């Protein structure tokens, strides 16, 4: 069994959540919410759909907690649930952003407009990265997982995670015109 260290308490919490204990569910939710959000952002490409993915992920996870048999870590299991949920959500509900780039920040004051432009630019640059690079980058940046933890989630070598992270940041720098050679 590969559960995270310390995990008698976690296992107990998961068991209680599977029994319908809302307090245990809330703790699990707060521990893993950002990971599900990072997956949602990487797959759907925007914060609002990513928030929906978070809710759907936990709804599905709490209903199927009995299916987690402890053979993999709980986080890996939840990651798989989040990834499948995000892909379903994307195929059913996500539409391409319909706001033209020129309209971003319309009606705002100059500093607000510039800030809105920058937000949109960063989001667009992240969206243009290949999916695997996006996932790695967002799990690292939004959730702060280590390279080893991300490799465990994605079932790949640490070197692959480092390479993906490296290419993601390089690609981002290029797209944002930060001048990294």
């Amino acid at each position, binding site marked *: 069994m590969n559960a995270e260290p310390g995990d008698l308490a976690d296992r107990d919490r998961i068991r209680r959540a*599977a*029994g*319908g204990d*809302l307090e245990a*569910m*809330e703790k699990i*939710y*707060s521990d893993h*919410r*950002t990971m599900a*959000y990072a997956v949602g*952002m990487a797959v759907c490409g*925007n*914060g609002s759909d*990513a*928030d929906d993915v*978070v*809710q759907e992920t*936990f*709804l599905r996870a*709490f*209903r199927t907690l009995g299916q987690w048999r402890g053979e993999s870590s709980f986080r890996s299991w939840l990651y798989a649930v989040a990834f499948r949920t995000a892909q379903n959500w994307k195929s059913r509900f996500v*539409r*391409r952003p*319909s706001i*033209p780039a020129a309209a971003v920040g319309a009606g705002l004051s100059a500093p607000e407009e510039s800030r809105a432009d*920058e*937000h949109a630019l*960063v*989001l667009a640059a*992240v969206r*243009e990265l*290949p999916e695997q690079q996006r996932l790695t*980058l*967002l799990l*690292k*940046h*939004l959730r*702060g997982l*280590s*390279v080893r933890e991300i490799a465990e989630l994605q079932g790949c070598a640490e070197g692959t995670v*480092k*390479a993906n*992270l*490296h290419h993601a*940041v*390089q*690609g*981002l*720098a*290029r*797209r*944002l015109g*930060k*001048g*990294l*050679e």
Partner: protein
Amino acid sequence: MSDHPLDRLPLFASGELPDREAAEVGHHLARCVACRATVDETRAALERIGSLPASEATFADLLVRRSRARDCDELSEALTVHVMGEPDRRVERHAAGCPACEERLSVLRDVRGSLDLLPRSRATFEALRGRLRPRAFRRMASIAAAAGLIAALAAGGVLRTGPQKPPAVPAPSPVAALLSRVDSADDDTLRTAARTLDRQNVLHALHLAEAMEDESDSVRRYAAVRLLRHLETPAAEDLLVRALGKNAARDRILVRALVELQSPMVVPWLLTRLENPGSRTAALDDLARIRDRSTIAFIAEHLPDPRVAERLARFEPADLIREAAGHRNGALFVLVPSAPLRSSLVERSATDAAFRRSALAAAGDGGATGMEFLIRAAGDPRLQGEVVALLDMLPSAEVERAVDRALDREETSTTAVRIVDALRLESMRDRLRHGVLAGRLPPEATLPALARLGDLEALIAAARMRTGERWKKAVAAAFEAADPALRAEALKAAVPGREKVTLVRLSPLTRPGRFRRDTP
């Protein structure tokens, strides 16, 4: 062979080996013909090199420079990981003495700062709580779900199995009753209930459609969508279609419901909406979600509009190929991100000159998706010259972005390397080097491209890291392709030792020699 002092032979040949080691090597040479021959060849090569202009750099300078450059290469990924939150002492030590890496760190930190602008999650457990049920309740509910739903339907008068007394208190409507339970029911139960509901009173479909659009209650919306997906009978669709146009405020709701049902019955209505620029975008989107093949031609009429090509990509490739063949906007189908369609259009471009002109022009004006078509077309030898010439005229940043993406995909990576080679895209040099050394890019195309871009260090690294016949041939061919002056420069700047042995083996200056003898 492990007894041969191969690493020390070049230093011995150039007289740079300390006395004690020189004596050991001399002792070995006295009884080893092969090593003597290597020393002779190396001396001959060094004499030829000696006739080139002398470098001002000392040996120590070269050693430090080369060692630092090697560290920079090896630490490039570690720099990123360091900045992204996993501090690494090696990086700190190296960057302290390397201005280039210090500068890179500063840029990476800047990029990381930009990531802070990404939106953060606003989801809360409180919002989820209402959708969760205690397990015991759920277990009970799942057992009794069917019975409960049927009872609710009966209470609402939906199931009329015989004469009944009117209820003493107003019962909740069947739809309301269904919606209140739908969150805990399984799909089979829902399907059964939805069919019964539909058969008895299709008007409920309309109520479901309204519930689906209720912004104030996400649970009700979710439940309505789930129920609506089980309404598959033509009667419900017919009702919803007939309601269209009678109440403008409801039209959008009805269309959403019909689209959710994937109903072709709403297609004629949507086609009329295409004529109005105000409703066109939503209509195109809905048509693409229904994916009725008869609508491809109508949607393609709007291919010049933004994002229409992406919507078309939802259709079956075979239908798209058939439609593109006879459509007046046929050339604009190059913008549709569908691999089978692109292959078909590349083939047509190769055989039909008139179509080729318009297709390449459309792709050239088509931004990122057009660029993807051009890269695929460049992989066809019949189109390669024309496409590369066109790419050369397009904005280089756009081309580089497309090539960057193409390098990531196995099916286009070789073509992308050839484009980098043909257009001499200097900015792609690192991508090629990392790709080929990691085995992601084919050495036969990539190493000569790197050589022509002046990156002989990549060849040295490849010769060291890869020893198979395929790699030997690719490295030797690439070395031949390099500029002779650069070759000589590299040979001169190489650190004595294994690096020099590698270069001496590869350099045409030293042939015939050891390399030729080793080659069958």
